[in-house]
């Protein structure tokens, strides 16, 4: 409402009353805020150099595409989680949605005889069903968290267990094979020499950067995560925004699961199991606060990229597979300490 300013009867009143100590460093602060966004870039460059020294395969296009493709599915979970975290909530159930959504699609479309498929619907339905299941899970989460005011952590923890159980139930604990063609497409297609899932992942992150940085919806996520009362007072429909955030997150998780199922040409009963810890680690390393209102999509992206690059370097260095888990955990801890030092502030 710019007109309220010009109509103010007071334009003449304006000798500057000093509001406290003069605020210098006008340029500095903004620049630092931007820099924080790039905090992980030096680490990524460093890992790239180390990787190249360890094994000259590292910077080969094939290897880079390999890294990008293996991370693309989990990266969608990070994208989804970042949206929810910025709004001051958390969604643990994303990892189960990641498995259950394509699982239900496979259950309904895979022909009878091959595993637990029912063959009720034709293969063309698989993608809509996947996304629909994602949306329904998001609605269920939002209803419990927003409508009934339950704590997001517990709700989504319960949901994580329920959804995992559902997938085990419909699949009989086994893996769905012989997926319909449409389910395989996104995970296997190659566009312009690069796997489609990489394109999709990059495009969605670009959209996420715009969404969080340049749209009213995105900014209301920050406002709600930062101070929900202030957001309400500013006229933001906080409940509606949270509903949307939770549903979008679940749909993104479903899409991520679809990409992975396509690439592996199967849906395992354990698909996504345990992924949520990597997701949280990536988001926090990337500067997203668990308390909400803080962090950027680009930062989250650098977080997951860094983790997958390190894993790749470890594999190339010939670290035995049995030890990768322990190292992964240690790396997450080290990365947190490093980002704490470079970020200068405590993770909240």
């Amino acid at each position: 409402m710019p007109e309220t300013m010009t109509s103010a009867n007071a334009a003449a009143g304006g000798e500057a009353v000093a509001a406290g100590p003069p605020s210098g460093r006008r340029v500095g602060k903004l620049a630092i805020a931007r820099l924080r966004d790039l905090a992980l870039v030096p680490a990524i460059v460093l890992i790239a150099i180390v990787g190249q020294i360890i094994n000259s395969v590292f910077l080969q296009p094939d290897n880079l595409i390999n890294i990008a493709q293996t991370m693309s599915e989990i990266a969608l979970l990070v994208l989804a989680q970042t949206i929810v975290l910025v709004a001051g909530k958390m969604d643990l159930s994303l990892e189960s949605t990641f498995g259950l959504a394509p699982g239900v699609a496979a259950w309904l479309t895979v022909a009878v005889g091959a595993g637990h498929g029912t063959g009720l619907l034709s293969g063309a339905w698989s993608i809509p069903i996947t996304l629909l299941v994602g949306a329904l899970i998001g609605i269920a989460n939002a209803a419990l968290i927003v409508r009934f005011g339950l704590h997001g952590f517990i709700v989504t923890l319960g949901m994580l267990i329920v959804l995992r159980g559902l997938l085990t139930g419909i699949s009989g604990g086994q893996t769905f094979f012989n997926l319909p063609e449409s389910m395989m497409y996104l995970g296997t297609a190659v566009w312009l020499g690069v796997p489609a899932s990489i394109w999709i992942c990059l495009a969605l992150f670009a959209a996420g950067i715009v969404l969080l940085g340049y749209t009213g919806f995105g900014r209301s996520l920050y406002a709600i995560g930062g101070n929900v009362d202030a957001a309400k007072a500013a006229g933001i429909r906080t409940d509606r925004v949270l509903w949307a955030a939770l549903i979008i997150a679940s749909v993104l998780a479903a899409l991520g699961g679809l990409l992975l199922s396509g690439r592996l040409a199967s849906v395992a009963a354990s698909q996504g199991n345990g992924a949520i810890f990597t997701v949280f680690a990536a988001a926090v390393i990337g500067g997203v606060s668990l308390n909400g209102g803080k962090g950027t999509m680009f930062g989250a992206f650098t977080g997951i990229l860094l983790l997958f690059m390190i894993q790749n370097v470890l594999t190339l260095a010939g670290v035995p597979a049995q030890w990768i888990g322990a190292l992964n955990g240690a790396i997450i801890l080290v990365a947190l300490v490093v980002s704490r030092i470079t970020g200068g502030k405590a993770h909240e």
Partner: protein
Amino acid sequence: MNGSGQSSPRSSPARNGDGRARSGPPVAEAIDISKRYGSTVALDQARISVLSGETHALVGRNGAGKSTLVSILTGLQAADAGQIRFAGADAPRLSDRDAWRQRVACVYQKSTIIPELTVAENLLLNRYDRGRSGLINWRALRQRARELLALWSVDVDVDSRAGDLSVEQRQFVEIARALSFGARFIVLDEPTAQLDAAAIARLFDHIRDLQQQGVTFLFISHHLQEIYEICDVVTVFRDARHIITAPVAGLPRNDLVAAMTGEAAALRAAPTRTAPAGPVEVVLEVSQLGMNGSYADVSFQVRSGEIVGLAGAGGSGRTAVAESVVGLRAPDTGTVTVGGHRPRPGDVSAALAAGVGFVPQDRHHQGLVPGMSIADNATLTIPDRLGRAGFLSAHRRDAVANRLIDDLAIKTPGPDLQVSGLSGGNQQKVVMARALANDPRVLVLVTPTAGVDVRSKEFLLNKVDEVADAGTGVLVASDELDDLRICDRVLVMFQGRIVAEMPTGWRDHDLVAAMEGLTVDA
């Protein structure tokens, strides 16, 4: 504005008899407002009428109904009965937030900014500039924010993180935001509670400026001095009712206090303390204490039974010195000796063990755990007295708590009530109870009566007096004259050093001048 203002006979300004000739209907008016919460009557036929351009004070003890009136007046909740009118017209529907924002705004004690976002975004939250693509145009937004702050003479960088602002800057930003919605009637809810003297002076300058520009203020404060300084008219609420509305100039202080308390109680008489005579044990000795960037070369002694004031404006180092004594900060040089022991610097539990009791600066932040009961809060410092080997005896805890509740006259149904359910004055008493729970030899108080109503304040200060008479040495770090009046002597700090020492009986003017760094020569 939908100016279908049929002026009812009630809305005549003359009704309040404030004697000020102002034209037009009141900017804001509450008529016979009643509000109940369950069985509690929060407001009973309360009324207030604020005329254009005046600065109107609303005072009353905690629980008098001020907060309820503010939330009804700003459209956050509906009254059970009664009417709100703005400029003679009925108030908008509650759901129409925009319409309310154009009429009235409130700067609450609790910040309504979002700390992680920039000042610019906070100012224009949900009112973004958009480019042709529908995306937010940050450059235009920052520019608009800059113009807005310049228009209302607020010197704050729009690109800084809002969480980095001082309390004072934050308030200015919130006022500017309120004005930007078109509201010219602003409620300030205890704006000075967290400000030091210099910042209060700047705030008042700013208020006067805005008043010149036609902005009307409703000013809520516990500090009667401020009301006399800045307000034209004062309305007193007591026990959910309107008691009196009168021009400030024509209302003597004692009458104002009487209206608030319902008794013809005179303000606290001149202190009758007698400093402990003769050689008495030194319970606290601070020697050559220094901390980089905060204070330097601070030395003083507190004897048993003595109350020593540590005065100074915000940033003078008084709070830092007090916090160093109790171990919240570790000084770089010098020593603190408590009753012959030297607790390890920067170690609170060592200081407590040496016999220090502490009332911290901000009860919400350091003083209380809001979700815990009175009993738990009051005994937080003395778990070892409540049982053996780390186990706590609930029985013993409640016994201790009940003793403290009686001792400090905390108004509560029992020790199990959560402290968040208490009024500000009673919360502060719980903090005091905690400080006294370990029978300290040295009691350190930092702004012990901030944000506390008149009665509780008097009670707390009397308590301090009593504690000192029982032989405890007391150190009061504050810039509040009432806190310092109970002291046997006051050490004045300015820019990190002790610059003056004044025995009891000082004149307000001299002390304030010393705190502001002006040379005192009477």
